[in-house]
């Protein structure tokens, strides 16, 4: 038995739930958490306002005859802006599953949640020793079915 912790974006929680349901895995726990990754909660994005400011600046320089061609791509380098976000709200899924199901569940979560941008989240797979269904007292893999 393994315990799968998946930390995902809030808006991907519903699609992930549906996908996991269609695999036949019914038991999922959702927790609202806040977290941050290796970047320490900072993201770098293109700054459209910065580009605009730079373009206005280029035209002023052109008017004053300091640069020849304002259309020169060398003057239009996209500006990056760094945001300090701190801890970001995320959803944490906890799924306990039989060893055979784990690769399938992991692949499904990756497929649904992968956008290729920072902040997609992470999956951790941890070993679990025992599981007990409180209603009947069943133990081990029987408790998961």
């Amino acid at each position, binding site marked *: 038995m*393994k315990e799968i*912790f*998946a*930390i*995902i974006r809030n808006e991907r929680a519903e699609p992930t739930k549906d996908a996991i349901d269609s695999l036949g895995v019914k038991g999922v726990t959702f*927790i*609202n*958490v*806040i*977290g*941050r*990754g*290796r*970047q*320490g*909660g900072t993201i770098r994005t293109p700054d459209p306002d910065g580009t605009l400011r730079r373009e206005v600046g280029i035209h002023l320089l052109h008017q004053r005859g300091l640069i020849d061609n304002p259309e020169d791509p060398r003057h239009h380098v996209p500006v990056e802006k760094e945001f300090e976000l701190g*801890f970001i709200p*995320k959803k*944490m899924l906890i799924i306990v599953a039989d060893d055979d199901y784990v690769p399938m569940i*992991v692949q499904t*979560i*990756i497929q649904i*949640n*992968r*956008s*290729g*941008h*920072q*902040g*997609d*989240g*992470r*999956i*951790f*797979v*941890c*070993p679990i020793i025992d599981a007990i269904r409180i209603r009947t007292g069943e133990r081990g893999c029987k408790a998961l079915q």
Partner: protein
Amino acid sequence: MKLIRAIIRPESTQRVIEALEENGIYAMTRMSVTGRGKEMGITQGTVRYSEMPKEMLMIVLPDDVVSKAVIVIEIAARTGATKFSTGNVGDGKIFVTDVDESYALRTGEKQ
């Protein structure tokens, strides 16, 4: 890889996070939990508080950094300790468990 779960006082969270940052550990997940220890909550006059609010930090780290991180959390989360006395009841606990696999969702790669 190991998963560290630290249950600490909400008011010492910021101090613990800053101490971890100083040691180059930024990635973590936080959640608010309630719980009690072996003292079964606290009693104030005739009122019994059976559960106290705490903050849980979850940090996954490579094996060689784990012992350092545990010491850093331990020292930062301990309140009012001096050379001759320990901290206070309710400072929290740290649990360390194994992690078999870890995946980054951005790339889908195993790490």
